[in-house]
């Protein structure tokens, strides 16, 4: 196998505060926070960006991202973002939602924001579970997956199958950019043994940047990011990463679902 060396630029970002994050070990929320900060720095938009903090593990982001913040009620972030963006079109308005927030209690808000081509950016962290509330079934929980409210595994005859937000939004005329990426590092075998590739992360990084670019072009941008929740999945961190790369991606295939402005080609 060809070995590719990737470098990640470490160091201080203007868009990140010095506050240590509260995220659990192995959680990718911190990774996403950094990718967003890097995009804000890279695109030079920090001073005109407002984050709408949604309810879930992402809600404390106001401690980490050095920009204006408005905390929204559970599921309502796209509505709050719409209100702000429509009176301040010069701002970059984005939110990070969890799967429960965006695909369950806030599905209407998400669909209508996309349907109306609202120029905002939505990042959805899909970890297939309610993390902050302690591991209950999410709309994205896999068939058979054990959670605290599906102790014998998710019964899709009772609860329906996994909700695919990317596929759903891609059917809407109003959505300009729909992408599913992954934040879970991937294990690969090499001649020197097993190593972890951050290829996924680089794709996620590009997607995050693109999602802001699409907003700047006036479009609704949505990036779903597959993530782990090793604490609530009750798995060691590396097993959880493996679970995403082996199992979750089968149900939620990575890829570009829609790109009206062709930003991925640029």
């Amino acid at each position: 196998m060809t070995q590719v060396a990737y470098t990640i630029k470490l160091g201080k970002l203007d868009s990140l505060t010095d506050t240590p994050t509260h995220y659990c070990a192995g959680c990718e929320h911190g990774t996403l926070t950094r990718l967003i900060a890097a995009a804000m720095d890279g695109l030079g938009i920090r001073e005109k960006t407002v984050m709408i903090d949604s309810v879930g593990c992402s809600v404390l982001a106001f401690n980490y991202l050095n920009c204006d913040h408005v905390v929204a009620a559970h599921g309502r972030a796209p509505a709050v973002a719409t209100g702000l963006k429509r009176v301040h079109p010069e701002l970059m308005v984005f939110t990070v939602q969890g799967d429960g927030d965006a695909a369950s209690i806030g599905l209407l808000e998400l669909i209508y924001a996309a349907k109306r081509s609202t120029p905002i950016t939505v990042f959805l962290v899909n970890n297939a579970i309610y993390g902050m509330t302690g591991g209950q079934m999410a709309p994205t929980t896999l068939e058979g997956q054990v959670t605290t409210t599906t102790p014998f595994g998710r019964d899709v005859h009772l609860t329906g199958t996994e909700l695919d937000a990317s596929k759903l939004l891609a059917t809407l005329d109003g959505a300009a950019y729909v992408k599913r990426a992954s934040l879970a590092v991937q294990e690969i075998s090499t001649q020197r043994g097993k190593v972890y590739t951050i290829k996924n992360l680089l794709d996620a990084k590009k997607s995050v940047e693109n999602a802001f670019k699409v907003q700047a072009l006036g479009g609704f941008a949505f990036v779903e990011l597959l993530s782990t929740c090793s604490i609530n999945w009750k798995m060691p961190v590396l097993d959880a990463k493996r679970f995403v790369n082996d199992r979750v991606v089968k149900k939620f295939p990575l890829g570009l679902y829609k790109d009206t402005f062709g930003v991925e080609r640029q």
Partner: protein
Amino acid sequence: MGGKRVYLKGNEALAYGALEAGLNAYFGYPITPSSEVPETLAKEFGNKKYPEFKFFLQAASELEAINMTLGAASGGARAMTATSSPGFSLKQEGLSYAACMEIPLLVVDICRAGPGLGNLGPEQSDYFQGTKGGGHGNYRLIVLAPATVQEMALLPRIGFDLAFKYRNPVLILGDAFTGQLKEDVEFPEVTPEHYDVSGWAATGAKGRSPHIFNSLELDYQKWFKHIGKIYEKYQRAQENDVRFEEYRTEDAETVIIAFGIASRIAKGAVNKLRSKGVKVGLFRPITLWPFPQSQLKMLASQGKRFLVIELNTGQMLEDVKLAVGDGATVGFIGKWGGVVPTETEIENKLRRLEVVAV
């Protein structure tokens, strides 16, 4: 509209009143009997007469509408949403967050007869929900109750002034009558007030530290302080911004207490009874919260009797009793389900009041 006299429905007057007050954004979901508010604003959206009116949107739900209003208001905009009772129930979530995060916005409830779907008749049965918080947690709305179409036109301006003064949501609580009634209205020649939002609005952290609207604090002591600060603000409102109208109360032996459309009927009864030599007056709270508690206490200390008239089963009645104390005689006429009392009913009740108290 400024300086002009026009013949308008209450809801239309309210919409124009909001535009005259410099409305920037409206988000709403249609519901009878308040739909003329979004209909009027939709018609005027884009009119060069209202350059400040930047955005109008019919939302997909009441929840979307109140949260969009909150979002726009967090950016310092004058944002408004209007609804009617069942919709007002759905707005409570957003109002709790807005009060918590000190976001000034204007919400209108053209109350119909509830609970449930109820009917489209006038009621004042959202008094509790409006004045006691309505949503979860420790907070209040500043509540303004219009009695005339003229007041429907003037209260949006006062509402925005109070909302921005206290950084708190303000509710205009009307009813199906004040919303649907058509009367002559005069719009005063005024320019919208300038509110300085630079110290708190979410407009991008350029050359300053971030503005954070936060409704989550896991440190109990910090949260105790934050809610305490909001509570102090409410005390200031109680001291400084109580509004009411007194009509022929000076020598009155009995004072009718009524707000909104009920006060209009009461005023008619007062005039009728006065012509018969009965010493009766009217006290009309305009701010339902802060409630004119000390003013009523003062009237009670003068030995006056009271008759509370409401289009509900007795909601403001509780606040009146609390204000006037156990010693005072308080009668009550309540009508609900869209039914309104007649002047004769008021007259008869008043005559019996000397012997019967509720």
